[in-house]
């Protein structure tokens, strides 16, 4: 009996020690990094209502494979681990903990969604593990003072809304604006950006019509917007609904000046279903080259992207902006990692991410560059205004910086 007791006691002590050790071990600076490999985690909605975005993750994975084929980064091969969260924050928490504590990744890269990233933001910062280049334009993710380990990537929605506001104030000062927006953080951020940019002229907005992703169509909202007498239509909708809205506007015979948010300005995925005739004159903003635009036919960067798609992601949709996005954000990660070879630790990588000066990417048009600093965690803030001529997007005006409007 005594022997069993003492064995149990030792077992218990060992177990407790292991458990405590397990808690402490994860705050290490080089977790996920060895001499030969670096583990990179990713969380995307492969199932559920947002599953269309999984193409971004597939593009990311293909890019990592290309990097590995070309020798990896800093002499290390990339182990890219991507999990599904079905766009549900509790699942994102579970997958993030799995990646950090079980798979022991060095960083989590390009995870998608505002609610989902908010759910893990505190955790990632507590674990001192980089939450890099989150796939959302919510402005809350560029806050180095409170969350030094979290960084966004794409131009944030508020800044883009301000850019459109500036355009309107300058070119259509008597505009009556009708807004269709998705009733979530993404839609509200854009709307707030527009309002902030209009300042005391916010009364130019005469109608705000929200919609839910559970609505089958937005026809009812479009009827209301037309009935409000608006002559400018701000279309803050995801691809499916944006296409429906543009199509419905044409069917209703309503011809306002249309401003389309950059999330849905893909020619193949949005304007084609909506109808090219109906989409003529639509204005948007971009920060990546459009693959359909013949002016980039012989462009070096575009050629590289085409070669990448043909070799590493042949199933991918070249018409979709998601593949352009995935390539570009992965290329940004590549530059960050290669810039941290001397200090290949969690903080080293974060430091490299926070010191990008006038970096060009293969797919950013001239004038649009990546810039970060210790106080600026918004890598991309420049956008180019574009107008659809019935066949493709035509750039007009100069590159506008969201930073100017901050």
């Amino acid at each position, binding site marked *: 009996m005594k022997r069993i007791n003492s064995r149990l006691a030792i077992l218990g002590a060992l177990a407790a020690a292991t458990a405590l050790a397990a808690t402490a071990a994860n705050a290490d600076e080089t977790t996920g990094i060895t001499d030969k490999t670096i583990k990179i985690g990713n969380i995307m909605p492969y199932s559920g209502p947002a599953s269309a975005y999984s193409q971004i993750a597939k593009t990311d994975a293909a890019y990592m494979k290309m990097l590995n084929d070309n020798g990896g980064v800093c002499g290390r091969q990339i182990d890219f681990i991507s999990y599904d969260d079905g766009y*549900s924050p509790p699942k994102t928490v579970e997958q993030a903990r*799995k990646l950090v504590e079980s798979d022991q990744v060095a960083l989590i890269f390009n995870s998608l969604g505002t609610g989902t990233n908010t759910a893990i933001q505190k955790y990632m910062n507590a674990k001192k593990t980089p939450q890099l280049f989150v796939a959302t334009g919510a402005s809350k993710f560029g806050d180095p003072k409170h969350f030094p380990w979290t960084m966004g990537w794409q131009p944030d929605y508020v800044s883009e809304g301000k850019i459109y506001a500036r355009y309107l104030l300058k070119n259509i000062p008597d505009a009556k604006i009708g807004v269709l927006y998705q009733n979530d953080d993404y839609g509200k951020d854009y709307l707030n950006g527009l309002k902030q940019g209009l300042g005391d002229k916010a009364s130019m907005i005469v109608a705000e019509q929200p919609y839910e992703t*559970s609505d089958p169509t937005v026809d009812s909202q479009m009827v209301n917007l037309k009935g409000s007498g608006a002559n400018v239509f701000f279309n803050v909708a995801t691809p499916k609904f944006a296409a429906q809205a543009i199509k419905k506007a044409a069917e209703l015979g309503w011809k306002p000046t249309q401003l389309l948010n950059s999330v849905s300005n893909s020619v193949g995925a949005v304007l084609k279903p909506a109808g090219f005739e109906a989409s003529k004159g639509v204005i948007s903003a971009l920060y990546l080259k459009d693959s359909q635009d013949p002016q980039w036919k012989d462009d070096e960067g575009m050629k590289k992207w085409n070669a990448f798609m043909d070799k590493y992601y042949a199933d991918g949709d070249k018409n979709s902006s998601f593949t352009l996005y995935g390539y570009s954000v992965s290329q940004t990660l590549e530059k960050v990692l290669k810039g941290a070879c001397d200090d290949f630790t969690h903080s080293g990588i974060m430091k490299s991410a926070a010191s990008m000066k006038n970096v060009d990417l293969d797919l950013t048009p001239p004038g649009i560059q990546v810039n970060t600093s210790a106080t600026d965690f918004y890598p991309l803030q420049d956008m180019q205004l574009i107008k659809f001529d019935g066949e493709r997007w035509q750039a007009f005006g100069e590159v506008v910086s969201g930073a100017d409007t901050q």
Partner: protein
Amino acid sequence: MSAREEISVSAAKAPASRFGWRNWAGIGVVLVLAVLPLFLANFTIFQLTMMLIYAIAILGLNLLTGINGQFSLGHGAFYAIGAYTAAILMEDAGLAYGWTLPAAGIVCFLSGFLFGLPALRLEGIYLALATFGLAVAMPQFLKLSVIEPWTGGVQGIVITKPDAPFGLPLSQDQWLYYFTLVVGLLLYWFAVNLVSSRSGRALMAIRDNPLAARAMGVNNALYKSLAFGVSAAFTGIAGALGAIVVQFVAPDSFTFFLSVALFVGLVVGGVGWLPGALVGGAFVVFIPNVAEHFNKALAGAVYGVILILLIYLMPTGAGGLVRKVADFIGRRMKSRPDR
């Protein structure tokens, strides 16, 4: 065969009063659950805690559907109410997390009871649709701009994770696991006692034959609404625990997929078999991961196939399987000559 008749055929009767092998099995399970965290990494403990939480939620659903025969596809809504109650009390009112559980229980009991009242008129399919509607509507209620100052709207509420009290040498995850385990055992004990009491028999009578029950003097309306209330309270407490463990609530966390998951967990565990809640909870937490492991692109299809196979093998859930095995062993033992 009507839906209610089919539920009663598969449901368990009230537990026997002798201290038999079932009770030893139960103690064994509790011991295993108590000892597990000492050997496992924090992440796995987190997953086990979620399993216990879903088990509590499914236990609540079982009380309503298995014991009282009312079909609900909307328990995710009560889970959400419990979660938000806890989040708002903890972050806005600064209440200690322990007190949020009874608060969530009371709020959900009232909401369940109030929902149960008009639901009295609805049977089977229609009740299913009404509860399903509740589940679908819940995220939109939570996003309402008029109550945004309290609910945080689409952004949700971030919650601070509590530390183990009295400086115990437990990690946060281990402490929350034991906390959840104790709460779960208390609720389970309450549920078992409820089922074997007069009220429990009244509930089961209403399930098996409502007209006969009424003829015998059971107040159907009161008991059915109370069943809704108690069931919602259980699921609401689970929701509150879930909020504390996940540290975040947002409308997107509580879509109708959650209600569907709870329902699937109920059936897999065994409708009317209370211990099945644990099996159901394990299913909800671990099977999607297994499916994803198999094939990420087709994870949903793999999940569906696993589910269909489970129903083939155990049409009445784990509870049905256990009962068949127990019957088989019981018959074998009775036929042995040397007793």
